[in-house]
């Protein structure tokens, strides 16, 4: 495998843009990434794109083809990757593999999304053989209530309080307000969060990410090419994809097995474990982590599940300020999904942008001091997860 570097990143700000198409958002992000890399569109040898079922892609998830047609049809190969909310991370992994394997020297990874209003509907399939369809028809359990069930379980097992849940959201906005690309740039008090509407008990409105529009792009290339372009490349030390294990205890579909141990989000744990192993680093080496915080629960649960801290320790670290950019275990210095909202398939590439800015020392008021190793993770419908480790 060849060494691969990130040499350019770009992002369209997150928000709701009624008068802009997903192609408009992607054009902005790709243009910014090309400028950042000092490359022209003609230099891109292949595109690895996240497939969306919500916007663009000619209704078939051909979102990479939309980008190529819009930027200029140079005849380059396009790979459209589908993995639910993990699609951006998946596209990055395939782009990485294509360069590492020597097929191409310069690849564009891109994800863009215009989300419909309201909470995400998990399934568009209306067949009685589809477990997601049956789950919604027979029970009625959309995403937030699923997260609420996991959160309530944690509260019972570890004593997490409603105040502690709210503190995760307060901390997210404390850092996210400094991010010019974030959709919600406002500081929240504990009272603001606890006073927001209960969406799915015990989770409140400000503790759950809404859906957003946004686009992000990253240009990755071989080491030789990277050294021609910049003296400050960011290296891809690990990139992994995993799917859920059979003995996972997460209540997916209508039913699963009662697991022998506390096995949850096995796909995320495996992806993170593989990425760290490839990078040859341990949790103690990480300077920051961008994780998929669809809700405050994940910012407490994931670091423990991956061994970044001990079970039950996440609340203490949060309350001591250790998850802030200046703390011992910085989590989501970008502000995360809570401050951006989820532009589903763009999120994996959004994370690549934040990691790159942090490792270059370009993150301004939310900068993690002297960051040199960073982890990012996504989780998607279907038991998909991705993780990557970037190094300076």
């Amino acid at each position: 495998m060849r060494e691969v570097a990130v040499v350019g990143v770009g992002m369209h700000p997150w928000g709701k843009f009624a008068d802009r198409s997903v192609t408009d958002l992607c054009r902005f992000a790709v243009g910014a990434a090309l400028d950042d890399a000092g490359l022209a569109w003609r230099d891109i040898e292949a595109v690895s794109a996240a497939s969306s079922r919500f916007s663009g892609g000619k209704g078939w998830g051909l979102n990479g083809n939309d980008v190529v047609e819009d930027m200029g049809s140079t005849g380059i190969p396009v790979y459209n990757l589908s993995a639910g909310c993990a699609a951006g991370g998946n596209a990055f992994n395939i782009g990485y593999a294509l360069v590492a394997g020597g097929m191409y020297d310069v690849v564009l990874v891109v994800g863009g999304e215009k989300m419909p209003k309201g909470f995400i509907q998990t399934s568009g399939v209306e067949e009685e053989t589809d477990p997601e369809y049956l789950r919604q028809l027979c029970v009625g359990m959309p995403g937030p209530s699923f997260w609420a069930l996991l959160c309530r379980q944690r509260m019972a097992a570890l004593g997490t309080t409603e105040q502690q849940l709210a503190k995760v959201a307060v901390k997210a906005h404390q850092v996210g307000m400094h991010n010019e690309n974030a959709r919600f740039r406002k500081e929240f008090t504990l009272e603001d969060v606890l006073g927001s509407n209960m969406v799915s008990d015990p989770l409140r409105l400000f503790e759950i990410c809404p859906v957003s529009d946004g686009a992000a792009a990253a240009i990755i290339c071989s080491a030789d090419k990277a050294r021609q372009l910049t003296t400050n490349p960011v290296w891809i030390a690990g990139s992994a994809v995993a799917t859920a294990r059979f003995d996972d205890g997460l209540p997916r579909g209508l039913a699963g097995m009662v697991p022998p141990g506390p096995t949850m989000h096995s796909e995320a744990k495996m992806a993170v474990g593989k990425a760290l192993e490839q990078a040859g680093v341990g949790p103690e080496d990480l300077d920051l982590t961008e994780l998929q915080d669809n809700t405050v629960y994940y910012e407490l649960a994931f670091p423990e599940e991956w061994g970044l801290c001990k079970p039950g320790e996440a609340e203490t670290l949060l309350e001591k300020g250790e998850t802030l950019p200046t703390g011992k275990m910085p989590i989501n210095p970008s502000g995360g999904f809570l401050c951006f909202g989820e532009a589903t398939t763009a999120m994996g590439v959004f994370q690549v942008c934040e990691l790159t800015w942090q490792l270059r020392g370009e993150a301004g008021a939310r900068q993690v001091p002297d960051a040199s190793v960073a982890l990012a993770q996504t989780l998607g419908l279907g038991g998909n997860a991705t993780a990557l480790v970037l190094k300076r």
Partner: protein
Amino acid sequence: MDERIPVVEGLFEEDAGRARLLGSRCRACGTPYFPATERCRHPDCGDSQIEDAAFGPLGTLWSYSVQNYPPPAPARYDLPYVPYALAVVDLAEGPRVVGRLTGDTTSLRVGAPVELVLAPLCHSDDGGDLITWMFRLR
């Protein structure tokens, strides 16, 4: 009309007043499945021996939450919308199952003993009751 119509056919039944979920179990490795499966999917089981199995009514509450806002389609509910409680239940010698909670939901706690029941989800278009499986504290 007092007709009770299953929201989906073949997923549950009431046998002598006892609610049961209809699934299957692998005789070789013991893994329970709901809904039924044709083949054992346990990656460590090389010897799929699937037979019909029914699960419930006794179980333990693994977790619970409340659906505070009207869920998107294809979920069904009567108007005006009334929030309902949701559960994940570990059925005795069965799978971990999702479902709604019915009856008293003011004293829920993780680990509470629950039982499976068949109860109305909402009215059907012709005035009958659409029935699904739910759980209630016992």
